[in-house]
Each structure stands twice: as C-alpha cells, then as structure tokens.
C-alpha cells in the first residue's frame, strides 16, 4: 500500500558500522572534549598531559568522530555525497530529474 520503497535494513554492513561509530561518538563526545582540553594546554604540567594522552587512547576506537564517514543515505556510497541532502550524486540526479527534489531545477544560464 506504500508508494515508496520500504527499507527495513541498512543498505550494507559498512553503513551499519558507520551507524555504530556515530552512536559511540555521541556518547563519548563530552569526555573527549574535556580530555583534549587538558591535553592542548600550555598551563598545566606536561606529566598531566601525558596521562591525559594515555587516557584518551584507552577510549574505544570507534568513539572518535574522525572515523565517521558521511555516506549516502540511500545507497551507502562513501564518495560523491552532498552534505545538504545526504545523498550520493547519482541518487540526487535521479530524484531531481523525476521532480522529487523540492526547489531543484536544471541549471541553465
């Protein structure tokens, strides 16, 4: 009865892993921020900063935000993804040509 495709699973495992990384990064965001504030300091003693370095390395690897990759939401394509629509260029073109993207028009000048 639904006019659109019904997707109940993630597109592939890579997308799933990306989702896990995003969740962990959200949970550890505050701690990472604070420990980094101690590390990137000129006032505090260096020993403290070294200890902080070790602590941040002990955190789970997937909790760092650098590991997140902005994949396409529909096809899980890692490259050619426009941030505003979270879609890969191919999907974007497909929808825009079928007039399913609001406010998007073919450029002509």
């Amino acid at each position, binding site marked *: 009865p639904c006019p659109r495709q019904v997707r109940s699973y993630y597109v592939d495992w890579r997308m799933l892993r990306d989702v896990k990384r995003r969740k962990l990064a959200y949970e550890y965001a*505050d701690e990472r921020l*604070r420990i980094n504030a*101690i590390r990137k300091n000129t*006032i*505090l*003693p260096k020993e*403290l900063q070294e200890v902080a370095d070790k602590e941040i390395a002990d955190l789970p690897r997937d909790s760092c935000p650098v590991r997140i990759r902005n994949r396409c939401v529909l096809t899980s394509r890692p490259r050619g993804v426009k941030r505003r629509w979270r879609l890969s260029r191919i999907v974007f073109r497909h929808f825009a040509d079928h007039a399913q993207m609001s406010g998007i028009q073919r450029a002509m000048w």
Partner: protein
Amino acid sequence: EKDESTASKDSATEVASKSREGTAETPKQKLLDLIGNMKVEVSYRNKLQQLKTREIKKQATNKLEGPDSEGSMLQKTTEDTQRGKPLNPELVKAASAVASSLPLNKKQTESELLAQLRRHEETTDKQKKGGTINIRNVISEMAVKRQSPAQGGLRISRRISLELDEDGHRIKSERLSPQSSDSRRSLKVGRRLNIFTKASKETENALKTVSSPTIWDLEFAKEIGAITAQPPRNGFEEMIQWTKEGILWEFPIDNEAGMEDDAEFHEHIFLEKHLEDFPKQGPIRHFMELVICGLSKNPYLSVKQKIEHIEWFQKYFEEKKELLQEI
C-alpha cells in the same frame, strides 16, 4: 421477595374471593402454610436491616416531635384511622404469615408490610377517583395569542423610538415590567398543578464522587478518539494534525520552543562560586578560570550542563592528586 409477597397477596385475595362464593377454605390455608414455610435467604437480611434502621429513625424523629410517647401513639392511631378503609383481614393474615416466614423481627416486618399495603390502597383509590394530574387545570391557564396587524405595527414602533429631545437624548417610553409585558396575565397567578417534583440532592452528591480513571476508562477514551478522528479533508486539517503531533513547528516560530531555561543570566556568567573546591593558586586554578571564561560565553549549554562540566574536572583532578603532588 417483595414481588413474591405481592403476588402471594394477590393470589390470596383471589383465593379469598373464591372462598366467599362458598367453597372450602383449604386452598387458602394451604397457601398460608406455604408462605409460613418459605424460608428467606440470608441476602435479604441487609435490605431488611436498612428498612429497620429507616423505620427506627422515623420513629425516633416522630418521638422527638411528639411530646410524649403516648401522645405520639395517639397521633399514629388517629393517622391510621384517618387512612380510610380498613385493610382486608385476609391481607392482614397473609402479611402476618409472610412476616413469620422472615428471619427477623416479626412485629416490625408485619407493621412495615401493612404500611406498604395501605399505601398501595391509597394510590388505587386516588386513581379510581380521577387522578392527581387534571389536564383541564393545565389547559385552562393557557390561551392562544392573536396578533392583529395593527397591533403588530404599534409594537414595532414602540420598541425603538428614534425621536430626540431638545438636548439630544432619545425619548424612551416607560419600560414595562418584563413579566407583564411578556404575558397578559402575570406568572404567579393560577392553581398549583403538581406536575413536577423537587429534584433530590442525592444525585448531585453521587455525581461529585469520581474515582481515579481506571485502565478500562482510558482504553475506552482512546477507542473513542480513534473512531472519531476522521482523515483530514484538506491540507489545513493535515497541517493541524501534524502540529498536534509535533512534526510541524508552531508559527510564528519562537526560537525558544522546547527550551525551558529558567536560569537567569547571572547564573550563566558568574560561575566562580563553583570553583571553591579548587586550590586558589597554581596552574590548575589558572586553567579552571579559563574554562569558566569559555563556559560563560557559551549560549548553547544549560546551567546544569556547565556545572557538570566543572564537576567532571574537579573529579578528574582529585583522582590525579597523587601525581600532582609528586611534581
């Protein structure tokens, strides 16, 4: 049981009439024996107890009103005699038999049953004579209104007079009292019709006592809501539904929707009071002051989050105290 007793009384009267014709008394006696042998269930006790208490209260009030017990008894007897026809002796016998069958006070139940019988007879007499509600009395007061066109014109002109005095005020015709103007006759004239009875106050009190809504009530309410919620007929109704659900924002947009920051500005900016536990001199203090400076400029965090931030640092530095003391 009351229906049974009345049915038995009716049957007893029928049997009594038959016996008057000349047949033997055995069937009636048999009936009476049956009634005497009937054993009432225990559940009837509560009803009887209630009846008893009511009767006791009535008697108590009667006694209080009357000067002496004898005087009240005399009043009662006069009331009894005033009630017109004496009861059928057959009915009295039947009542006594029923009373004997019931487990509680014989005499009391007998008197109650006899009182009930008297009431029945009264109502039957009234209905025979002609009834309490006479329709003639009701219609006699009503009269058909006839409006002649000339009078209609007069009335319209009487309503608003646009004439003006010398000063400029409107000339108002004398206001008739609202009662007499509405009807030719006044409202308080006429015989009492006794159609309506005063509403009892018990129902009001019963309505006020409401228990907390049970799960079934909530389910019922949900069901009703689901049934009455029709699909939206147009785009506006769709937007209304979305706004209720929370999908659509409320316009004009207020930037603080959902944000309930009750804290004043000074709680955001002057965060030094949270720094009491820290040492007053040294690099840590310097560091924390920088942290506080940064937090005070942060509009995105709530006061609670800022306090948590500072407390985390506190904990962290306390754990590292030994390390720091080595340095």
